[in-house]
């Protein structure tokens, strides 16, 4: 394929900022005017976006009613609710992506959400910082224990985390004696259900747009300094205008529904940081190499054990964050909170194009995967689709997504 890939310079894909947080995509790729990942990776990303849009339009059309003549699905009242629901899965999916990319898995995520959320709820008497901090500490600690057993104990990740799934659930059942603990601290509750004041949303939009402009132009200068060809003015303007327009639209939309939900802001922050971590740090790059070819990674001087342990710790931290969002949203910590969340997170990654064999997958893909799942959930509930049918549809979508991916890959 490399031989005939001599595409003209104009065949440049548009900026991908609509798919991913700023900085998450290694730009400069297009600057050569030839980008040959287009047939595989980018095409997959576009297919995913189209699938998402198709799902949205379908539900929008199906929810037309006299009260909402244009449909209710995308109406801010519903949609900000949808995003709030997906925030927990999205944060977990970003963490899960790190370990899946490195060729591992974590099945204990749901139980640890229950454990960390329970610990936070039970320690509210010691103050806000103690409660929230302990949830994060529990997440990281669990990650370190499991990651240590996997990386240094050579026990397969599937086994360690399957054991973890059972054991951590047992721990929280024991701690809580089976009781559900209500969330009493207002800030804790706000984390799950709060909405940002409209002015704050507007300020965030300005800051985000400024960041897009800043990164675009520092990149141009950096490329020139290194003697690389820099994109032309037109491309740069496009690269600023498109994300800026999307940011404005998004904030306006959220504000129209009463302000951006706090968990959505947390998810966006996690996604941006996760994108940066995977694409712009040695840590992230090594994870891809470890998942893609562990032998080559080891012989290139990468300390595989150390990076696997670190990946599980980062995942643990994000599980702690997710447990706070979830507990805050529900308003109480029950011992069975978080059940099946690991499967949602894995499904989000997989729908987003992540290979369970390791070495392949993006944060933006995982987030879009989570969005697709949440959209299906929310849309089907609006349409009063019966519960049993919802499970069947989600299962079929998961398998079909991977099936299409395989088909596309075989052709290329």
């Amino acid at each position, binding site marked *: 394929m490399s031989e005939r890939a001599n595409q003209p310079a104009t065949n440049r894909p548009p900026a991908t900022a609509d798919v991913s947080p700023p900085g998450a995509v290694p730009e400069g790729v297009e600057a050569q005017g030839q980008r040959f990942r287009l047939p595989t990776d980018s095409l997959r990303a576009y297919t995913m976006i189209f699938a998402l849009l198709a799902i949205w339009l379908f539900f929008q059309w199906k929810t037309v009613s006299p009260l909402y003549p244009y449909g209710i699905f995308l109406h801010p009242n519903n949609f900000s609710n949808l995003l709030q629901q997906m925030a927990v899965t999205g944060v977990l999916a970003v963490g899960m992506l790190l370990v899946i990319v490195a060729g591992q898995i974590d099945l204990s995520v749901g139980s640890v959400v229950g454990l960390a959320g329970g610990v936070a709820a039970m320690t509210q008497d010691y103050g806000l910082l103690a409660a929230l901090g302990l949830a994060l500490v529990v997440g990281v600690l669990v990650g370190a224990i499991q990651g240590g057993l996997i990386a240094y104990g050579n026990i397969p990740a599937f086994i360690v985390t399957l054991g973890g799934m059972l054991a951590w659930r047992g721990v929280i059942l024991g701690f809580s004696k089976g009781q559900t603990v209500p969330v009493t601290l207002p800030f804790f509750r706000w984390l799950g259900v709060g909405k940002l004041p409209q002015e704050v949303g507007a300020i965030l939009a300005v800051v985000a747009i400024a960041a897009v402009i800043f990164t675009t132009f520092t990149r141009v200068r950096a490329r020139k300094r290194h003697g690389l060809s820099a994109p032309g003015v037109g491309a740069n303007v496009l690269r600023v205008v498109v994300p800026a327009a999307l940011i404005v639209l998004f904030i306006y939309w959220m504000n129209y529904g009463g302000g951006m939900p706090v968990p959505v802001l947390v998810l966006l922050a996690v996604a941006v940081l996760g994108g940066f971590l995977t694409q712009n740090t*040695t840590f992230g790059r090594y994870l891809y190499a470890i998942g893609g*070819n562990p032998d080559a990674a080891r*012989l290139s001087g990468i300390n595989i054990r150390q990076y696997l342990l670190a990946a599980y710790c980062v995942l643990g931290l994000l599980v702690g964050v997710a447990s706070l969002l979830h507990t805050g949203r529900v308003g109480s910590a029950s011992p069975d909170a978080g059940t099946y969340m690991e499967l949602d997170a894995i499904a989000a990654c997989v729908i987003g194009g992540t290979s369970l064999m390791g070495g392949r997958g993006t944060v933006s893909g995982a987030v879009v995967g989570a969005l697709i799942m949440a959209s299906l959930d929310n849309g089907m509930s609006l349409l009063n689709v019966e519960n049993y049918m919802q499970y069947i549809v989600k299962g079929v979508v998961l398998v079909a997504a991977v099936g299409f991916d395989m088909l596309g890959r075989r052709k290329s």
Partner: protein
Amino acid sequence: MSANTDTPLLEMRNIEKSFPGVRALDGVSFDLYKGELHALVGENGAGKSTLMKVLAGVYPFGTYGGDVVIDGRVRQFHSVRDSENAGVAVIFQELSLIKELTIGENIFLGREPRRFGVIKWEELYSRAQKLLDELNLSLDPRTPVGHLGIGQQQLVEIAKALSQEARILVLDEPTAALADAEVETLFRIIEGLRARGVGMIYISHKLEEVFRVSERITVLRDGRTVGTQPAKELNEARVISLMVGRDVNDIFPEAEHERGDVIFEARNVTVEDPNVAGKLLVKEVGFKVRRGEVLGIAGLMGAGRSELLMGIFGAWPGRVSGEVYVEGKKIKVSRPSDAIRQGVGFVTEDRKRFGLVLDQTILNNMTLAGLKKLSGRFVTDVDAEAAAGERAKKDLRVKANSVFTIVGTLSGGNQQKVVLAKWLLTNPRVLFLDEPTRGIDVGAKQEIYAQINRLAREGLAIVLVSSELPEVLGLSDRVLVLHEGRVTGEFKREEATPEAVMACATGHTQRAA
């Protein structure tokens, strides 16, 4: 037993086999009589394995030229199953037993005695026991194969071949993994098979063994038969000259490198087999390399060349002992990152398995080993990286549209250049090259040779391991020869004739520098 006068058991006539860009077999003829052991020798890549794969049906009928004749009848094998039915059994270097299954299960795998699909275990194990008894092996057929040593596993393979009533048995480097006592057992079994009329083809680099067990010897070179003669009429020196007889000097640019100070030294390196405790693959090997010098390490398959480099680099899974000095300072290497930090680079063999992350871009592969040096310890500098990648791509003339092309889509030669670039971007002072031109076309080979010469001229110290003798002789300032894990010879460039080096590589002679 002299060669029979009746029709041969096996005749391979004018076998031709081509791969894209390579003519692996160019009219090879070979025959084998009942009860005969016919040795097949030649340099690495001479075509021995290809010839045996034609015989075994690995390359199906129609993909090669010439005839395979067994018992006077031309055969058309479409699969390995076909050749097995005709009585051919091949015991490859990599054993094909399943470690979790028992000896008996392995022997009858896929052919279990059964009734209505139910396996008759008693019959299976009693027949397996009988086969083991015939080979004088005191093993319980219910033992899992994984519990056996490599040597015993090999004998189980032979038992399996006998259970298929094999009349033509191919032994590919059968003693490579065996201890001395096991070799004796194998030879005893070979005598037994001979008496039963089994014809055997014996492939080995160990000429001493070849002369001990074979009636006739066929030498292959560059896909052609150089000669077939009774072993009695040959000697080791003659076989060696048949193996190498070829002009070396034409494809290698004459390169006399300016040599500087000793920059790298290894002393007393000993490397143990991780699977067989106590078996040493490299025994007290030492060498020095100077700035701007190319040190070639020659040796045949299993001589311990890659193991030596892996051991020094901190990448060997088994036990390694010895000392390593960089610029006169002793360094401790317990993992590859230690070696890399000291300026050692290692272009490993088998680029797809050890060298590249095939799903990723050229750029990501090129910068994998030197990432922290190139672009910061934690946050990467994408542009500095891209610039370094672009430069390396141009310097090494990697043919691809951009540095963002996925490495798996490149040709072998270009993939190899990417691996080379990866190590050059770590800024090494000494570079190990293990089989740098394996499986790439002639044009790409020449380019790699030119790069090696350029790097040496620029002052890099290079250690080159290659199975292709002309390559080692053509590029090296000095040649070290290994045989069974020991240094058996050291030559200056002008003294390194193919015959002399091959004599050391086969363990025929020893020589100090």
